């Protein structure tokens, strides 16, 4: 009943526009959210609607649509012989259900209008890129793209002028905007390719025309869009198909990548990449140190990145760098400059407590490596905080139970779970693995974040894994 009534709250329209904004104005994602939501009250929890011109336009349209829908419903009712007052009531009752669909149609229309504009911007950027002399490296994968891009950027910057789009500029329009800012004297350009639907990567390849490729991993991310992991893999491997004989680095630590990789691809993993062999590696709160063997010389490099899963990508970056002409010393200095990126296994000290922000890491492999990293931190009380993972499709039970089992096997002392549709599976996985620690439940992320500083003591390590945006609650 509360959910039904929430559609008649004055803030209902604002909530719809907020979620349209949160879904980056993708009408399909917006409608999917609308269909799985029953209660529209208190949706704006972590962020708030930003009043951009587009948002204001949509608000005006939505209210207009509300009035129009109410009028039309009333008119139809009246025409069928229903008395006037009751017709008006019927009109108002129906209107909130029609508004989301009218917004959906409007966004389809606006997006269609944007297509020629975007096509022009992308075509212009493509001409710039074609003339640009820089070596172009493309990074694709379900996860780990930003990490790989940043590692490559740090290592290669040691000896080359490197540019790479910041944030998550991984769509044609995002890349085109980045290209507009280029000076023209860059020696290496690194691009992150985002895959949303089949064909996306090939489209980006034809746009950027990369000479080098890195495939970081394949997993269940975006499974709700791809339906099967094989379709996701085929899309990501469009990069390899495009590059043909050119160098393609593939993450051999990932089973699905291994399965799809060709023998001609260069594998990278915890043992090394190409000519860079890893002799030893260890990790801790302060970072990761790696002993490489390259051209018979042994080279020790220290990165501030946390976790042994970074060893493979660092080795790949070292191999690419040396093939692009960087010296071993330049590469070592470049590796020293690699550091945790925003919200990805990023540590900070807070009153004696080590907080590890892994809130942008929302995929099963990311969760696995984070738990694996926690496992290596002996002698400290460890907390794992998560609302679970999103977009896991039909595999959500299996994925979350696995997380529970991994947490139990790593003997994590405290697991903090936010109550929602997936975390009970983590609890189930924990219980089935005879978990000896404590499970702490919270109804809301904000309550958990407020309580954590009151529950921890100096020396504790708190890892915050994934942070669900409002559209997934």
């Amino acid at each position: 009943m509360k959910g039904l009534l929430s559609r008649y709250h004055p803030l209902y329209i604002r909530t719809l526009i907020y979620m349209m904004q949160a879904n980056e104005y993708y009408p399909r994602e917006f409608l999917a959210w609308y269909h799985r939501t029953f209660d529209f009250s208190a949706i704006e929890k972590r962020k708030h609607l930003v009043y951009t011109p587009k948002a204001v336009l949509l608000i005006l349209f939505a209210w207009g649509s509300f009035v129009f829908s109410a009028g039309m419903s009333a008119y139809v009712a009246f025409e069928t012989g229903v008395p006037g007052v009751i017709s008006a009531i019927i009109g108002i009752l129906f209107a909130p259900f029609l508004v989301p669909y009218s917004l959906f149609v409007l966004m389809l229309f606006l997006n269609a209008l944007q297509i020629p504009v975007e096509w022009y911007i992308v075509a212009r950027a493509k001409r710039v890129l074609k003339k640009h002399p820089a070596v172009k490296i493309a990074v694709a994968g379900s996860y780990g793209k930003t990490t790989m891009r940043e590692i490559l950027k740090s290592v290669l910057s040691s000896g080359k002028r490197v540019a790479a789009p910041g944030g998550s500029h991984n769509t044609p329009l995002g890349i085109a905007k980045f290209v507009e800012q280029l000076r023209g004297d860059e020696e290496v350009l690194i691009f992150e390719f985002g895959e949303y639907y089949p064909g996306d990567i090939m489209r980006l390849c034809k746009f950027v025309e990369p000479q080098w490729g890195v495939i970081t991993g394949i997993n269940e991310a975006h499974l709700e869009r791809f339906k099967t992991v094989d379709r996701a893999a085929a899309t990501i491997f469009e990069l390899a198909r495009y590059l043909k004989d050119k160098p393609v680095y593939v993450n051999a630590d990932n089973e699905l990548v291994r399965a799809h990789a060709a023998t001609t691809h260069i594998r990278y993993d915890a043992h090394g990449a190409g000519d860079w062999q890893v002799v030893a590696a260890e990790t801790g709160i302060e970072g990761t140190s790696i002993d490489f063997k390259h051209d018979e010389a042994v080279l020790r490099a220290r990165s501030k990145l946390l976790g042994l899963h970074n060893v493979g990508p660092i080795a790949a970056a070292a191999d690419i760098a040396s093939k692009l002409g960087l010296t071993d010393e330049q590469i070592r200095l470049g590796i020293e400059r690699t550091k945790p990126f925003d919200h990805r296994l990023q540590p900070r000290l807070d009153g004696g407590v080590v907080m590890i922000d892994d809130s942008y890491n929302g995929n099963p492999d990311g969760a696995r490596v984070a738990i694996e990293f926690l496992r290596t931190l002996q002698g400290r009380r460890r907390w794992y905080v998560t609302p679970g993972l999103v977009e896991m499709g039909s595999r959500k039970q299996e994925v979350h139970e696995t997380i529970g089992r991994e947490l139990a096997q790593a003997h994590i002392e405290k697991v903090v779970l936010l109550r929602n549709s997936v975390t009970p599976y983590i609890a189930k996985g924990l219980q089935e693995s005879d978990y000896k620690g404590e499970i702490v439940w919270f109804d809301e992320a904000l309550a958990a974040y407020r309580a954590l500083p009151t529950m921890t003591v100096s020396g504790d390590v708190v890892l915050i894994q994934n942070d669900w945006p409002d559209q997934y609650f």
Partner: protein
Amino acid sequence: MRYYGGMKSIAVIFGGRSAEHDVSIITAHIPIIETLLATREYNVWPVYISKEGKWYCDQRMNELGFFKQPDWEAQLSEMKPVSLSFTAGFEIVWPGVFGKSQKIDIVFPSMHGTFGEDGSLMGLLRMANVPFVGCDIFASAVAMDKVLTKEVVAAEGMPVVPYVWFTQAQWKADADHFRTKIKQLKAPYFVKPVHLGSSIGIAKAKTDAELENAIEVALHYDDKVLVEEAVEPLLEITLPLMGNDDVRAAQCERPLNTSELFDFNDKYLSSGKSSGVNNAYSEIPAKISEELTRQIKDLGIRVYRTLGCSGIARVDFLVNDSTKEVFVNEVNTLPGSLYHHNWKASGVSNRDLVLELIRLAQERFASQKSRTYAFKSDILKKVGGPKVQ
């Protein structure tokens, strides 16, 4: 006990007519109120006592941000002061036609200095027959008076530095007498207002002129002043303690002074962060020998028990860094921000600290309830009759 939505009602009382009014607001919020709210086990009622002594209660004051607003005092003036009722336990009463009352199950005093930490509030709460957190009236009253503390501690054979004390009236009447007594102490001296905490009004005097000035400053804040020998070279150690009959010590902490005297600014302001006590200027655990650590902890527990402390307290020590002689300096029955940074470093989270203090309050209250305070007598019947023995 009455429950509010299944939760116990707890009143956190702070502010007050004290030089440490503002520090009290910080302690109340960091960590007490923020932790109580985070537990989701208590309905928290913030009770703010203004510098004029008026009591206010509004759950908007659960946020420290309320007191950071430029117009918070204007907002306060629009609120109606509350009154208290002891008719059915401890009740906060909002006046007016639509007035209401709220029964309080537990009180968490968060007041530093006069009228709060000195036992006054504890007396009121004892009369109201409500469990309250922290030291009771007797320990609070003794600890508030630095001279009385020294006398009690010394009487039990524990070491204190030589000192002289006098009241404002005594100083006015015969300052030379006290100057002579002070001369018998070894300079330099520390001059302290006897009843103030948070190092307010404390000064170090090396010369006669500095001494006179320091006494004038101290008498400005208090009517009783203590002059004591400074320990040199000085190693300050502070030790938070918690418990009723079973007392546990946190870590020995060494304040790392930015100035020669660890004053109010060092304690609360220097870090520029609003995290309660400024923990950037302390070393936890203090880098001292195991033997000295054990000696200080044992002495701290003895002091705690001698003064009859319960709940929580902090004992400060002066250590001669050359000879390693240890002196008891003073006792603080409500350490600023509960010294939660030290407890955290000792493995006690804010949640465990606050909940344990509440448990200790309830334990002491239950023990007091079981005690017999009154007995039947026929003395009244005998008045006017046979001679009362």
